[in-house]
């Protein structure tokens, strides 16, 4: 199978422009005859399905949700980056490109990232035209804010619901194409296998989740926009049903999984409160614009807080350690996510954590409330405003900026964050790894494409805030609709693919057999129990800090768990009905194999970079130690049940000098 990045020649800033103007096109009369299956209706899948419909392809789009609007893109709060330079603060396409490469700890492909930065500006224009209600200044123009890991304000936002508003934009465009008959929607359908024919991806086997029936769907090409696999950790900020199964089914058919160990731990989530906990809730990174992160300076104070004898308010200013500001004066509380997460872990490991579990740090808005209050009082000509009035004015500003986040925090924890500093702790949030794709976003399987979080392409070892929405929409609206032409232009002579052909019948039979097998075990433990167990193993041995010994142990434990699963899982209900437990069991079975591959990948990568921190490789002051001479490559894994094979794509940096990432 081919394994080339297919990056076009030429100057970095000219590659995409030239390539776009010279790539093969498909004529309108042929587009009508070419069928494309898109799995997933989040930002990437929804945008791609809408755009393909507009272009005239015959599109079938699948989602396991009841509606395309429910994809997990909806939960993104903070914003979307674009190199518009509307704030005149020195931003440019190159700077966005550079920040993304650097933020990713130099483990992504230069050409892909530059293209992402180039099309970022089109995304904002497109979303505005769709009616997405971005935040605006008093002059009516678009507002921006800054985000972690960068020194310019390039993040566009829609209160704390940027993901929801952008997804609704894509969903509405998709709905329009559905009503025009260009796109056929299959909601409540889950892809349970990929169908290969003559070495190409030619369709999928889907399970109708309402009836439990399997269906065969054929097309000239298959696109996976199925999101990330963060739920392999059981507890994550992902939605409960987010899963890696579609991508993993492709891996089982020979697609390569790239950098699976690159997972992002988001620094600002609401801490875990108990064993029954089903998921973790993210507090947007935008809060770090105004919140200051701290722990008590001494362990006695921390212990008193944990035992409920003191609260954060009882700790005097001089007894607080604003550790991010202390360790990273240049970026302060706005260091990238991986750095902020590790620093929180370090503080808690030193016994300075502030929740009963010992796993939480403070995010404090007091200083911001006072600052904003003074500034508001000044602009209202209230020169005599007392402390209470200043606070009142300041709280109003904070409420306008982050009101819904503060409300959500209070609902979950029962504490008022306007009074008591928020407690936060890192949690799994995003997966930079994903299906290996070339410059055209095609996997190593011809005709199989991966977009959005499902691919590995743009974020290297760490994603910057507000870049996930950007990448999903870039892939869906502005990249894949062009690059898929390189494949489909070769398909114009091929007739419609027959979903009743032998390859499809065989794939369907295999899928059915797998479902029957899982149902027939009739053991004693629920799929949820296995998932929770897997999550504990992953977090313990493949979480924020990893080491060789732990990773080997982790892999062994997962293999044991897999064995136990296939002998003692219990799935209630029947196959041919609406059965969420069966859906879960199938997903957990895939998660376990994927988790094993993550352990292997983390073991192979003998360096620390981005979200991947190997304890053996750190500097004297505990910073990550990258090893560019040996590990500047993309790990692309070919699955094998006993011995997965590693393929390496060397990363070539022609424009950026590899430096130690410093935010000090």
């Amino acid at each position, binding site marked *: 199978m081919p394994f080339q990045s297919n990056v076009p020649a030429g100057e970095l800033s000219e590659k995409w422009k030239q390539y776009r103007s010279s790539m093969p096109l498909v004529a309108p009369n042929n587009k009508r005859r070419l069928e494309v299956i898109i799995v997933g209706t989040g930002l990437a899948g929804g945008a791609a399905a809408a755009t393909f419909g507009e272009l005239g392809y015959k599109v079938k789009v699948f989602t396991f949700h009841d509606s395309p609007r429910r994809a997990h893109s909806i939960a993104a709060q903070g914003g979307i980056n674009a190199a518009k330079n509307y704030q005149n603060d020195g931003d440019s396409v190159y700077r966005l490109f550079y920040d993304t490469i650097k933020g990713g700890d130099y483990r992504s492909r230069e050409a892909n990232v530059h293209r992402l930065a180039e099309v970022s500006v089109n995304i904002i224009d497109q979303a505005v*035209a769709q009616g997405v209600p971005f935040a605006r200044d008093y002059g009516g123009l*678009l507002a921006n804010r800054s985000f972690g890991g960068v020194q310019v304000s390039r993040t566009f936002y829609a209160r704390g619901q940027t993901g929801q508003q952008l997804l*609704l934009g894509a969903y509405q465009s998709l709905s329009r194409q559905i009503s025009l008959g260009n796109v056929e929607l299959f909601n409540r359908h889950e892809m349970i296998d990929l169908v290969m024919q003559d070495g190409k991806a030619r369709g999928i086997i889907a399970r109708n989740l309402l009836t439990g029936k399997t269906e065969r769907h054929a097309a000239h090409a298959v696109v996976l926009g199925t999101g990330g696999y963060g739920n392999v950790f059981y507890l994550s900020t992902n*939605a409960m049903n987010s899963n890696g199964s579609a991508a993993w089914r492709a891996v089982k058919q020979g697609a390569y999984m790239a950098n699976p160990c690159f997972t992002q731990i988001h620094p600002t989530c609401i801490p875990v409160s108990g064993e029954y906990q089903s998921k973790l809730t993210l507090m947007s990174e935008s809060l770090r614009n105004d919140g200051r992160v701290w722990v008590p300076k001494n362990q006695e104070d921390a212990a008193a807080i944990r035992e409920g004898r003191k609260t954060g308010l009882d700790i005097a200013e001089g007894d607080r350690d604003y550790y991010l500001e202390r360790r990273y004066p240049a970026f302060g509380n706005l260091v990238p996510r991986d750095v902020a997460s590790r620093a929180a872990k370090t503080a808690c490991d030193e016994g300075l954590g502030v929740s009963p579990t010992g796993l939480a740090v403070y995010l404090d808005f007091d200083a911001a409330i006072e600052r904003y209050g003074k500034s508001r009082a000044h602009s209202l000509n209230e020169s005599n405003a007392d402390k209470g009035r200043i606070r009142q004015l300041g709280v109003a500003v904070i409420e306008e900026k982050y009101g819904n986040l503060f409300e959500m925090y209070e609902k979950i924890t029962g504490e008022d964050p306007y009074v008591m500093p928020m407690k936060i702790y890192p949690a799994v949030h995003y997966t930079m790894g994903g299906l290996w794709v070339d410059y055209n976003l095609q996997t190593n399987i011809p005709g199989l494409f991966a977009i959005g979080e499902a691919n590995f392409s743009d974020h290297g070892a760490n994603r910057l805030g507000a870049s996930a929405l950007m990448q999903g929409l870039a892939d869906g609206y502005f990249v894949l609709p062009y690059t898929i032409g390189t494949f489909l232009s070769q398909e114009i002579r091929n007739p419609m693919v027959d979903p009743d052909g032998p390859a499809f019948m065989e794939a369907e039979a295999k899928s059915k057999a797998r479902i029957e097998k899982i149902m027939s075990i009739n053991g004693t433990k*629920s799929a949820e129990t296995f998932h929770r167990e897997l999550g504990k193993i992953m977090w313990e041995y493949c979480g924020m800090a990893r080491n060789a010994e732990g990773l080997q142990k982790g892999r062994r434990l997962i293999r044991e768990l897999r064995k136990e699963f296939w002998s003692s899982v219990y799935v209630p209900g029947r196959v041919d*009905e609406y059965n969420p437990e069966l859906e879960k069991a199938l997903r957990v079975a895939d998660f376990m194999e994927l988790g094993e591959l993550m352990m292997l990948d983390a073991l192979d990568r003998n360096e620390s970079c981005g979200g991947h921190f190997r304890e053996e490789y750190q500097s004297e002051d505990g910073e990550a130690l990258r090893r560019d001479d040996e590990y500047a490559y993309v790990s692309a894994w070919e699955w094998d049940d006993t011995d997965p094979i590693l393929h390496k794509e060397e990363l070539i940096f022609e424009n950026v000098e590899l430096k130690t990432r410093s935010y000090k």
Partner: protein
Amino acid sequence: MTLNLKIWRQGGKYPKGQFVNYTLDGVNDHMSFLEMLDVLNEKLINEKEEPIAFEHDCREGICGTCSLVINGYPHGPMQQTTACQLHMRHFHDGQTITIEPWRSRAFPIVKDLVVNRDAFDRIIQAGGYISVDTGQAQDGNAIPIEKDQAGHAFDAATCIGCGACVAACPNASAMLFVGAKVSHLSQMPQGKVESDTRVQRMVAQHDAEGFGRCSNITACQAECPKAISVEHIARLNRQYIGATLGSEKVAN
């Protein structure tokens, strides 16, 4: 705490649909309502009973998937809170809690507490969009939009499509859902172009789906987890009248 749960079950063992009582102990304050149901389901599975089907996904109050009527209130007794964001600290030991699905002819029951809300998608497909193809857009700052107006449009755009408005309405009307989308798009300059046909097509689809008429009861606003105001229904009505009486733009 220990709870008495009275839960609607439909399908499988209960073909016609009926309330079934469960007692659950070991519930604590920090649990979310859905985590409490998780614990119950885990218990049922361990007893080889069929778990209760309920829909949920993000558990952050934004995806709009969860759909429980709790003690008679869509999404439960707390205002501006989805069922997934409701926590058990608002209930007390020994309390009886009744849990039902959304009830509306246009939302047929799939199983237990799960309903089919495809009708909402079809209403959006009828016209809840701005007709712009990818790549046709001008610069994002080409049309300034006054801050407050953008804010009003946003208030409407926060609808999560959960269907609580329908569940709350004695007429099972979805006018708050339709009004929110009509109001959002027609308050943006980009959406004004199609506003006359949009409102007619969306209302026609709403009626065709079997949702009831609005009679200004405003329970929808009270139960909406995003506190969407009925003023958006008023805006819809004004537009609908303008579009049908005063305009030649009659929808096809």
